[in-house]
């Protein structure tokens, strides 16, 4: 009876995950969708704690104090971290939480393999020392199914890669870890991955005497691969990597579902794995790159080193007063936000500027590049925080049609997403990525802190074009001053 109730709990939870995800993809229902999925998750967790039974644990689970202590600790830290994090730091926090899930999956595999080794092949090895290799075909008496070992290894490998990769992504996003790459890194990554697969296949197919030893070796290699997988990737690729690792963790969770024949873990895991993969592919498409290319990790690696530094042209600066006049007397302004806006926490001031200009009869809208910021939709979340109306946010395709009739484009801390090299320079690492064609507008004002290249480390010709003028300074400060100046116009 209790087990039947648990089955019902799991069924309800699985449905809430699907419905929740569906609701999350529509603006009006998104928040409720998140709540629905959270409620389902709570039900599944409580049900598992109190109602779970199986042949190994016929009387239900024990170690309650450990379980509750773990949930309490994780719950408190998780809530605090999520509540306190600044908007700018949200992407890296998501990456970190994702890594925690991956680590959880890897730990489950570690423990389950320990049980497996303890109960089966290691004890039998002692009985028959003569044969030093166990072929699975003659373990018909042994319940060690190839499938089980495969699933445990899969959970371990994917979970570990996801964990190590997410931690590196977290470190990179908050600037603790620098891009790092060396010659032959692609080859090394591929070799490492190949060895990993071979070793895993060896364990699955032959179940060698020292399977546990090889198992830990696989664990270590997966962690190393995760590190080297993300380490060389920089700039515009980071959102793709987080999304990809997110779907990895989904698959790792599904492995756990396979292992325990647990349908809700399977449903949730595969659902996220599939949805995450689709999201990743959509992002790759937005940047006109293949997933394989991202996987090998080629983006951040400098192609020719110092030779890339072309001679810089001259750029011109514009004073605040001039900028204010130009903007106050134009008909149509397009604001292009980027990571600089997020760093400076300037979204509220930006909204103020927009309101002020609108009062003066200027049509102000925002052009949102799909990968502006550190995550897809990063700018949307940021501007939503500042109460900017949805209708004012234009997607890239729409915005590109509007630029021709735009008087002033105000670029706020965006760089790579407006770099014309993506169109013209086939040697540029971002060549082929669709960009916002801000050059079609009459005037371009670029706000940056300095002439330093953007996150991807590429020079931007836009700054040296005749229509462009630079407005240096912290985005928040500059916008505040700009508002004051416009009020005086």
């Amino acid at each position, binding site marked *: 009876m209790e087990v039947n109730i648990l089955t019902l709990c799991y069924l309800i939870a699985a449905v809430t*995950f699907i419905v*929740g*995800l*569906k609701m*999350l*993809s529509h*603006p009006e229902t998104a928040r409720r969708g*998140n709540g629905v*999925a959270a409620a389902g*998750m709570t039900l599944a967790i409580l049900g598992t704690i109190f109602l779970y039974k199986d042949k190994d644990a016929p009387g*239900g*689970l*024990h170690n309650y104090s450990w379980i509750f202590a*773990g949930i309490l*600790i*994780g719950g408190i830290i998780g809530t605090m971290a*999520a*509540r306190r994090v600044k908007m700018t730091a*949200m992407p890296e926090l998501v990456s970190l*939480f*994702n890594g*925690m*899930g991956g680590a*959880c*999956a890897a*730990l*489950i595999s570690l*423990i389950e393999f320990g*049980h497996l080794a303890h109960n089966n092949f290691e004890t039998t090895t002692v009985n028959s020392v003569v044969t030093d290799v166990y072929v699975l075909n003659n373990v018909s008496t042994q319940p060690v199914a*190839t*499938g089980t070992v495969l699933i445990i290894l899969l959970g371990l490998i994917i979970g570990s890669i996801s964990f190590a990769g997410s931690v590196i992504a977290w470190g990179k996003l908050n600037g603790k870890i620098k891009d790092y790459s060396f010659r032959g890194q692609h080859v090394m990554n591929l070799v490492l991955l190949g060895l990993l697969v071979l070793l895993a296949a060896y364990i699955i197919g032959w179940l060698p005497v020292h399977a546990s030893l090889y198992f830990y070796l696989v664990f270590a290699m997966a962690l190393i691969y995760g590190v080297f997988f993300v380490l060389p990737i920089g700039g515009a690729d980071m959102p793709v990597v987080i999304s990809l690792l*997110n779907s990895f963790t989904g698959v790792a*969770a*599904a492995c756990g*579902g*396979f292992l*325990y024949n*647990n*349908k*809700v*873990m399977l*449903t*949730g*895991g*595969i*659902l*996220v794995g*599939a*949805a*995450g993969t*689709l*999201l990743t592919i959509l992002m790759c498409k937005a940047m006109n790159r293949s997933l394989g290319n991202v996987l090998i990790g080629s983006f951040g690696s400098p192609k020719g080193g110092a030779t890339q530094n072309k001679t810089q042209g001259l750029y011109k600066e514009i004073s605040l007063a001039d900028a204010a006049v130009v903007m106050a007397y134009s008909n149509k302004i397009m604001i292009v936000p980027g990571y600089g806006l997020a760093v400076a926490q300037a979204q509220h001031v930006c909204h103020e500027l927009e309101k002020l200009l609108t009062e003066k009869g200027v049509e102000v809208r925002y052009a949102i590049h799909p990968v502006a910021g550190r995550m*897809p*939709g990063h700018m*949307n*979340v940021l501007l*939503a925080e500042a*109460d900017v*109306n*949805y209708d004012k946010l234009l997607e890239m395709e729409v915005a590109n049609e509007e630029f021709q009739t735009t008087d002033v484009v105000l670029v706020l801390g965006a760089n790579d997403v407006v770099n014309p090299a993506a169109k013209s320079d086939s040697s540029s690492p971002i060549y082929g990525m669709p960009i916002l064609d801000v050059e079609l507008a009459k005037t371009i004002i670029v706000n940056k802190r300095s002439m330093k290249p953007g996150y991807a480390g590429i020079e931007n010709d836009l700054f040296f074009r005749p229509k462009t003028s630079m407005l240096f300074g912290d985005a928040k400060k500059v916008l505040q001053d700009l508002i004051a100046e416009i009020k005086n116009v």
Partner: protein
Amino acid sequence: MGIINWIAANEQIIYIVILMIFVGIEVIGRVPSVLHTPLMSGANAIHGVVIIGAIIVMGKAESDNYLALGLGFLAVILGTLNVVGGFVVTDRMLEMFRKKKK
């Protein structure tokens, strides 16, 4: 032959996997780019179901198996972080979206 037997033994699970792949793709197929970040974050929280595995492992560990207890305890903490943190962060993001509706 082994593979065929394995498929037969796990028929239900394999059906779920195949169907869920399509459901996952279908469900987010037409998501507007404004919601990409919250969606990724929400999906991130959902794959926190892995915590159920951690609870099962923890709840079955023998009281003298300190390695399993320790690792299981850690797994429960990490899994909870993923679930709770994930849902709270997503809610915070979406809260900002809702405010402007007024």
